[in-house]
């Protein structure tokens, strides 16, 4: 299952509502971090960091992956 591409409701770093609050720091931090929360449902994802990429799995919405 791959991640569905719906609008992000939640910040994938802090898990708070994407539309409220200031997430500039989260966006900056994400340059050096994988996502931790599903942007669609806010569930904590199972994240595996690999030397050249990462994958993040939400039980409801599937897998994010970012090979580099």
């Amino acid at each position: 299952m791959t991640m569905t591409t719906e609008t992000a409701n939640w910040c994938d770093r802090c898990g708070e509502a994407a539309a409220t609050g200031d997430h500039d720091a989260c966006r900056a931090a994400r340059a050096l971090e994988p996502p931790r929360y599903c942007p669609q449902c806010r569930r904590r994802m199972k994240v595996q960091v690999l030397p050249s990429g990462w994958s993040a799995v939400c039980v409801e919405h599937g897998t994010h992956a970012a090979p580099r």
Partner: protein
Amino acid sequence: MPEILDRARTQVLDGGVGLDEAGVLAVLRLPDEHLTETLQLAHEVRMRWCGPEVEVEGIVSLKTGGCPEDCHFCSQSGLFASPVRSVWLDIPSLVEAAKQTAATGATEFCIVAAVRGPDERLMKQMREGVAAIRAEVDIQVAASLGMLTQDQVDELVEMGVHRYNHNLETCRSYFPNVVSTHSWEERWETLRMVRASGMEVCCGGILGLGETVEQRAEFAAQLAELEPHEVPLNFLNPRPGTPLGDQPVVAPRDALRAIAAFRLAMPRTILRYAGGREITLGDLGTRDGLLGGINAVIVGNYLTTLGRPANEDLALLDELKMPVKALSATL
């Protein structure tokens, strides 16, 4: 030139004898206007006693999160409200990670688990994983699995694990402020067994945990006493949900001064840039560190956070005319 640098030039550069705790402290207390010459001296020491080669390593987390220990810097502790969830890496993915690491030219691949110490499930995963890597990938395998029993030490040797990482993290006097679920002495005991087994000892720590400059010097001296083959030097990357989540990052000049000071304490060891260098020093810091005593890097990502792309570090080594240590040189 400050007296301590004069002394270091004679004692460390010419004689190969590292500075003691008082000497390291004097280096850490040098004002900013002496930072450049301190880094230059540390670089000369590294070149004299280690040579121009840089050891390149990749690391991967075999078991992430859910750790029963309370290391206050760690997002993988199950005791804190960290967003990191527990996950295990399967063997095919582990082998693929080793292949990707070897493809960068790295000679070291360290398998890490967030545990107090290995249980039978983890040791079984290690047996299968190390055997699969050794069958398919031309790379040295290291491990970092927490505190070990003698039987586990012996078994890792049998598997062919050539180096074992177990960080003391910080100096003995500050350790209880950082970890309460086990002691500095318990970690030392594992390191003693590892050394006696013939595996190479890899032991470093994290700077910026709230320790004083005096405690930083104490830590360098305690590491020097251990005489580890390798010292990974991390800088705190404050993780959300951990007790140190709001701790400020180390100031770049203090980080560079520490790199030089640790090199002057341990002229012959492999001093590796590890986690936190990106957030502490930025891209330029990698260059400054490599010209200030560092002679090894972790390339690519870390355990739960991301690093610089490996090709950027490798391009920098090429530009600095620092050859990547070949596998044959480590066997």
